[in-house]
């Protein structure tokens, strides 16, 4: 499903001036399957964009349309369905549960969607170098390791879009590439696209569209 922006402007950013090709206060479409890189300096609204798209924030002018339905018209069950089946997310602050193990963190999501088997979860953890952390409390992991857990958790559902808010900020290039490879594989399976925000220009992986905001 496509995501359409129509004169969208978050309330906190309404006093700032925006360039002509900015996403804010203009109209643009993200087509399903596209890989979109959002690049901007701090404070220009990268996380705000992710939060608007995920329905965490609703303080904006204009309209965001998902498929044929405006996000502003979503009711409770629409949001539940949207978050379970259509849009997956990796928050900047990861939002993991530090007091349960790595595997339990993944199962919290996977039990809801029944998307992967336990073996598939373990295989993905192995691919991202976390096999030995399976039963370690998430709070005891490094930030880089936690980012990888959050990425695998985001993959534990069907989706048409994956939102990633500075997902590799604590990862080295090798681990970021491994993560990107896994993300792209899953996107391909679902014919899905992703939207990644980044502080600086990423050169380690390719994308279809670059948007400065």
């Amino acid at each position, binding site marked *: 499903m496509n995501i359409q922006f129509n004169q969208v402007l978050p309330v906190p950013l309404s006093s700032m001036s925006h360039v002509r090709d900015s996403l804010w206060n203009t109209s643009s479409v993200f087509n399903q399957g596209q890989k979109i890189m959002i690049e901007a300096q701090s404070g220009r609204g990268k996380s705000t964009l992710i939060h608007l798209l*995920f329905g*965490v924030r609703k303080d904006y002018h204009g309209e965001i349309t998902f498929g044929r339905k405006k996000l502003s018209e979503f009711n*409770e*069950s629409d*949001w*539940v369905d949207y*978050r*379970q089946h259509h849009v997956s*997310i990796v*928050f900047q602050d990861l*939002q993991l*549960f530090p*007091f*349960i193990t790595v595997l*339990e963190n993944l*199962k*919290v*999501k996977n*039990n*809801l*969607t029944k998307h992967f088997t336990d073996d598939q979860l373990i295989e993905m953890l192995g691919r991202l170098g976390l096999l030995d952390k399976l039963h370690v409390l998430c709070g005891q992991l490094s930030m880089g390791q936690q980012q990888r857990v959050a990425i695998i*958790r985001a993959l534990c*559902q069907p989706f048409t879009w994956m939102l990633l808010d500075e997902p590799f900020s604590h990862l080295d290039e090798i681990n970021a590439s491994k993560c990107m490879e896994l993300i792209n594989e899953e996107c391909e399976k679902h014919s899905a696209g992703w939207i990644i925000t980044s502080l600086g220009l990423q050169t380690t992986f390719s994308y279809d569209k670059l948007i400065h905001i």
Partner: protein
Amino acid sequence: MLQKIVLRNQSKTQLVIALLGAFLGVLFLLVSVQYFFKVNQFGKGSEMLGPNTLIIQKKVSSSTTLQLASTSFTQHEISVIENKTFIQEIQPILSNNFGVEFATSDPMLPYFRSDVFIQSVDSRFLDIKSSQWRWKEGDEIVPIILPRDFLVMLNTFMSSSGIPQISDELAKDVKFSLLLSNEKTKKQFRAKIIGFTNEVSSILVPESFMCFGKVSFGSKVTEKITQLMLSSKEKEFGLVEKFLDEQHYESKNAQLVTGRLKSVVSMLLLVIVFISLLTLIFSSFVLIQYIQLLISRNVYEIRTLLRLGYAPRKLYFVFLLYFVLLYGGICFLASLVFIILKSRIDEKLHNSGIYIALDYSKMTWATLGISFVLFYVTALVSTKRSVMNEF
């Protein structure tokens, strides 16, 4: 897994205090409601005369004994009483002017006989259906109401004969006979006890039976009316008492005393029910506050789960189920303690000679059910609102 995540950060002390409060609230309410309704039922069924019924007579003094003043009621005196606003019904009591013999006629019991007095009373003064209090010429069985003292006397006779005593219920199944007689003739009838009274000292029979006795066996001397049965209007016992005092009439006061005592005790119990209700409301309020506290302490977890795609309904049901089970456990525990406590209280009352019905009042269990439903609804509204705030 969900419980592990959202039911963290509990304050055990606060939870225990809230649960203890709820337990005591439920327990107090069960006990007070049980005894409130049982005290109100106290005496019901054991006394055949209606609750507002009195038997009055003129005071017997030295002058009446010396026949300077009459102890009988004139027609005028009866109509004066009848016209009082607080009097509902009035009827002269007829007594036998022929011989009456009461005897056992049951092969299971030893033979016992005694000369007795009988009096008649209309069914409207009795706490029974009028169809039970009926006799017509030709009927073999006469319904009777036995003075409770008479049963005590009968039981004394039974024990001295080495036979087990008989209860009220058993006495109703035993065969008795009434023998009416004069110098010339006699006739025997089967008698069936249909109830007991503490208010009258003679055996009560239906008016039709008394009339039959008077016509068939009575002397021709005109009878004097020495006793009247009257019923007062509800809650106007005070006026009746005052009137009786002014007119120098007297009555057996047991009904008045029981009535007054019941009013005082039930008023006290009503206060206790009210206090218990307040205790339960406040303790449930503390428990609901605790639920909100727990939700606010786990707000990050709830918010994250909602963002992972969990439906709010699924999350608030985790809280609801947990606290409803806890409250259900509290109700169950309080019911167990109540059952034990009730048996102890009943035993104490029984030992003190107070016979309150031992069965459980339906209202007690209804109160328990209502308190559970109210807690469920309040907890549902509270958890739903708190979780939805994070959505």
